[in-house]
């Protein structure tokens, strides 16, 4: 009998038993708020909480210069056809695309957002911040929140637990030393099986964003004490310029405008939150940033939008919607 890999360990007894014998200790939550989400009660009666996120990653990616086995090609302008890392050698083209992000793209985005006084959360990769102190200083001066985006911008899936724990600590220290304040938010991205538990255990984070599961913050109870999740988005995200489907800034604008309009309309009854993910080396390119500027024009033409940093959303949720049961902050 030939089984495909995804059937190798299937419990065949489940195929003949009665239907509703699903595991009671299933750790995923497919129900969430269901039919009736809670009233978020955002400050000022806002219909929508909007969180812009700038991923600061350049200089933290895989490269043989950093002692890695291969050099990163992911999420650059090399495109989906060349996604596999270059093993054992430097990827000079990709390196220079990442450098564009820290050298030019960051400052273009910085000028756009500071001139409009738009609050921002940075997902800051520790090693990347350490390699660009002027950028880190500018984030602090702008009043931006710098959440931790791990110490390296790599796939943590196969990292030993002890090493990942040490890297989380190092990531916190890097933000603290370059920005002047420890991060209270977390986003790893390419997580391991241990990431969330290690983040909860560390104890100093009020939220993490390693989830795409909802339009509102929610409490996770998997790891002892209640842990707040602020879901993020990989569709309202300029990484689509690199991975697939989007070439023009106009398309990017249209997509995030549609998302805003939908949530703003729903917010008349049930206010939600919206995340927009940005990258210095992607939307920071001249051919793309106009799409972001147009989106800001659109948003700023609306009343009742709470444009804010993620830590404010988290603090609001903790105050207004505390976790049930013991262990609540």
């Amino acid at each position, binding site marked *: 009998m030939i089984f495909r890999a995804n*059937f190798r360990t299937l419990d065949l007894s489940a195929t003949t038993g009665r*239907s509703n014998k699903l595991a009671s200790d299933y750790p995923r*939550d497919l129900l969430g708020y269901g039919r009736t989400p809670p009233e978020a009660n955002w400050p000022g009666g806002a219909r929508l909480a909007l969180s812009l996120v700038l991923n600061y990653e350049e200089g933290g990616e895989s490269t043989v210069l950093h002692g890695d086995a291969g050099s990163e090609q992911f999420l650059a302008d090399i495109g989906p056809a060349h*996604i596999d890392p270059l093993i054992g050698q430097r990827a000079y083209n990709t390196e220079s695309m990442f450098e564009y992000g820290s050298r030019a793209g960051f400052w273009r985005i910085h000028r756009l957002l500071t001139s409009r006084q738009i609050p921002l959360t940075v997902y800051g990769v520790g090693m990347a911040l350490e390699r660009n102190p002027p950028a880190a200083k500018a984030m602090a001066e702008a009043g931006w929140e710098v959440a931790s985006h791990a110490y390296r911008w790599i796939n943590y899936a196969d990292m030993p637990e002890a090493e990942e724990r040490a890297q989380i600590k190092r990531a916190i220290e890097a933000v603290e030393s370059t920005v002047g304040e420890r991060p209270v938010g977390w986003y790893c991205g390419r997580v391991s*099986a241990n990431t969330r538990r290690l983040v909860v255990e560390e104890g100093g984070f009020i939220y993490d964003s390693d989830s795409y599961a909802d339009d509102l913050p929610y409490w996770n109870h998997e790891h002892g004490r209640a842990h707040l999740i602020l879901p993020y988005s*990989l569709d309202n995200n300029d990484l689509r310029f690199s991975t697939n489907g989007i070439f023009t800034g106009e*398309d990017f604008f249209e997509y995030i405008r*549609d998302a805003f309009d939908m949530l703003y309309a729903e917010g008349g009854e049930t206010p939600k939150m919206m995340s927009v993910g940005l990258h210095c080396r992607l939307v920071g390119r001249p051919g793309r940033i106009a799409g972001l500027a147009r989106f800001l024009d659109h948003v700023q033409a609306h009343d009742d939008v709470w444009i804010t940093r993620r830590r404010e959303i988290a603090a609001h949720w903790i105050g207004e919607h505390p976790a049930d049961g013991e262990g609540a902050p």
Partner: protein
Amino acid sequence: MSMEDYPRDMIGFGPQPPHADWPGGARIAVSFVINHEAGAESCILHGDAQSERYLCDLGLVEAEPVVGGRDFNAESMFEYGARAGFWRLWRIFTGRDVPVTVFGVGMALERTPEAAAAMAEAGWEVAGHGYRWIDYRDVPEEVERAHINQCIDAITATTGARPVGWFSGRRSVHTRRLVVEEGGFLYDSDGYSDDLPYWNHDHGRPHLVVPYSRNNNDLRFATGGVYTGGDFFAYLRDSFDTLYAEGAEHPKMMSIGLHNRLIGRPGRAGALLRFLDHVQKHDGVWFARRREIAEHWHTRHPPGA
């Protein structure tokens, strides 16, 4: 060249399709389909060896399943579909009183009883979409047969009515025969080969196929080719306009495939609203569940007629 034992049908209705004679003299039958799949995809929590990444917002470059581990990011994208996307679509369709067929995966419905009850409450048809949302290609025949029965049981238990329609998606060489043998299905939709329902005679008795579509389908948001809701709307609108124009002489049917975790995202749902606005501006449109289309075909176009 012998065409006697060639099991495919390259000719179909040919240059003169039958007049569908839809109820009310409609020019087009429009079938919206919502795929309800989250919680039934490959996942090591479900006893699988790997975790699914297909048809979610990880995109083309990260489509390979994670072997031997959970894929927390993809899991949460599927969860979004069940938690938030489903209810957004439910409000849109019930708010406009537009009928829907759900392609319901048995295990997914079992994990979301409130959604299943809301489907029944809305008068939606729930057709069988496998017990699991997996590739059935190499699943042994007896396991697939058991899964078909288990899917029927799950839909009956969670929605109160057994499914009369079937769509596997990633089907095996056995699927259609097993569906015909089960005996309780009026139709299946594992075919993309026509603009009208047609009879299949491969497995003894005549079996109705109500063809589905993977181009009028929001899965293109995940597989490539479409990013904006505007593009998706434009494609659906063009399909509708073409079939509507043809429908003056030869009425056809149009299927629109939707997924909670894809079109249910705020950046995309607006395109569905725009398309519904467009269609609802036209007279002579029959919004139908697939079972009504199948029942109409059984009655008005029986096999051999």
